């Protein structure tokens, strides 16, 4: 067992733990904090089913962003959909045997990798070139883009430039899941790729990546618009009536 394997195994356990614990903490916080007033951005759905449909459009199609800015929507959507497909494609490193559908979509995942990096570069270009976006950009926004671009680029490099031992990688990942550590191949692109992914996992619950759980808890998007038909009362507001 090389020290590298031990280091990466421990790193991924730590990253996984921080990601999970951090997200659970934030999601609990969002869920427990009351929304005392009805504030859906109207026109809004008047039924629970309508809200689910609005949320699906928001999360899958980025409907509001589409209304806001078409370039931003193209880059942002390409990145997110690319990322989602790439993540699905990576499932093959965590299941054995590989499901048929997962084997079939593998080629799509490769294109998705380019869409992801392309989208990210577009978003980054806007941060630099558009005066308004430059104004609202903090160093952490650049770092986040750099992190994601490097993850995407190092991943694509392993596919197209210098192949890594993916059988070994898979053995390492499956081993992590059952606490039976297997040696990690030690080529540079892979080590960089995995290190950056671990950093992303650690940063997730402390950063703007909280938009992922946040969108589901946004009262302007997830509330049923039925203020006149049903009395809506938060616990702390009810106290004021006693």
């Amino acid at each position, binding site marked *: 067992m090389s020290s590298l394997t031990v280091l990466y195994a421990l790193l991924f356990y730590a990253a996984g733990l921080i990601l999970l614990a951090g997200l659970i903490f*934030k999601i609990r*916080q*969002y869920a427990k*904090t*009351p*929304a*005392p*007033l*009805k*504030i859906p*951005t*109207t*026109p*809004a*759905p008047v039924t629970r089913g309508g809200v689910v449909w609005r949320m699906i459009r928001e999360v899958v199609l*980025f409907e*509001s*962003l589409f*209304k*806001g*800015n078409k370039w*931003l929507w193209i880059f*942002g959507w390409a990145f997110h959909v690319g990322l989602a497909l790439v993540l699905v494609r990576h499932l093959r490193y965590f299941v054995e045997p590989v499901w048929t559908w997962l084997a079939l979509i593998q080629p799509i995942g490769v294109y998705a990798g380019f869409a992801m990096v392309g989208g990210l570069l577009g*978003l980054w270009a*806007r941060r630099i070139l*558009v*005066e*308004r*976006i430059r*104004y*609202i*950009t*903090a*160093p*952490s926004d650049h770092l986040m883009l750099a992190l994601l671009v490097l993850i995407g680029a190092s991943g694509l490099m392993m596919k197209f430039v210098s192949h890594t031992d993916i059988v070994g990688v898979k053995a390492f990942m499956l081993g992590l899941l059952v606490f039976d550590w297997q040696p990690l191949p030690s080529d540079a692109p892979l080590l960089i790729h995995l290190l950056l992914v671990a950093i992303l996992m650690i940063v997730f619950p*402390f*950063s*703007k990546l*909280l*938009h992922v759980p*946040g*969108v589901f*808890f*946004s*009262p*302007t*998007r997830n509330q049923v*618009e039925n*203020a*006149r*038909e*049903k*009395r*809506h*009362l*938060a616990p*702390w*507001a009810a106290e*004021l*009536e006693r």
Partner: protein
Amino acid sequence: MADYETPQLRPYPEIPALQPDATAHLKPYPAAPEHNEALGFPGELVDNWQEKAIDKMGELLGKYRSLQVFLDACVKCGSCTDKCHYYQGTGDPKNMPVARQDLLRSVYRRYFTFGGKWFPSLVGARDLTEEVMDEWYSYFHQCSQCRRCSVFCPYGIDTAEISMAAREIMDSVGKGQKYCNEILGKVHKVGNNLGLPGPALESTLEEFEEEIEDDTGVKVRIPVDEEGVDVLLITPSADFFAEPHIDGLMGYAKVFHEAGVSWTVSTYASEAANFSMFIGSYENMKKAAERIRDAALELGVKRIMVGECGHAWRVAYSFWNTLTGVGHGAAEDDEYAQKLQKQLDPNYPAPQHICEFTWDLMQEGKLNIDKSENDHRVVTFHDSCNVARASRMGNQPGGQFEIPRNIIKAVCNNYVDMDIDTIKESTYCCGGGGGLLTDDLMEIRVKGALPRMEALQAVVDDYGVTNMAAICAICKSQFAKVFPYYNFEMDMILSTHQLVSEALILTGQGEQQEEEAPQEEEAATED
């Protein structure tokens, strides 16, 4: 005259280049100690204000999910950056919604997040200093809480929620704004924004009754404090004294008269507006709304109706049920709300908008309309921001857009809409909402009106529009004031129910005055 220039109307509006600190000098007058104290806030800036402000922020984060999520979730994508009318009119980057939020978010990050505590400059976190507080006071009073930004945000982040929280934090340490706090004090004390006492209100309304009778030959009543009637009308107090608001009020009276529905206004609850929303104070909002509940209980009315007012309709439609039980659907064991809800007629929405009432009557054929009375006009409609994006009318989402337009089209032959990007859910604020309708903020009001003025100019040029109708007291006052800056006549702005009033033929009207009825038959522009 003021030392600033009215913006030029642009035929093809573009996103303005950044002009840092263009409106950093704008600050509303601070509230006097007695104005703050009347609302339960410290009179003057407290000694340990930094500590208190951070504590208050922590308290609000625990009470409002919107604040917690909105401060966390923003990714700085920039979708909102060009959506605010104040940014469009001033070019000041801090009037971009995300940058306005960041004034508060930077402090949130510093005191409440890991990144901000340990790596402040990396994530744009700042200490709460006097300069930061001054910046808050300036720029959170350059937000009219119109929610336009929230339409275009992928997470629905609403800058209105942020500016309400910021104002509440400032109030909690004694840094209140004169306009809102002084007015709110009058509501708590007298019952309306003007501080107009009951007897004065009664004599004003008598004058209106006489005016309607002189006009139509029909005696139309505007009842005051009448018990046992069906409807309690709550309307912005501007409807009692300002132009063109009063013409709208006379329109409501005529509609009630023709419908044969008994109604009353209340001298105790003589204000629909609830400025507590502007300052984010739930307690004050509840206190002001309780006057309406109490008046409804005392007068024993079956229905509660609201006149033409934007933010007021938001509070009424979206919040009254929560605040005071004015609505339906309270739990069986909710004694507080049930006390009122058992009294209210379940066949009607509560509260009901006057436009919903009028449109229902029109559909039932109960109003005798002569559209030609408005033939000398070509009318467009300004969707008031808080009606458009924070409430509804009728049974369908979007009824708040259709019902007022249906009413106008039912009483006018010549109607056109402004550019689709400036109406309905994308409507622009008039520039005077959210507690900014005060002379000490005239510069931002004039500049913030720019996008609406441009859209209006376009339909004036293309279709010969002569009038813009609105359903909000603030919009009407604001437009009457800023129109002259953009070379429009101030009486171009109308109450929607003024148009109704002029086309409505009362039963018995014209029987004695047939021969003197003037006929205005100007050729109206066809589109």
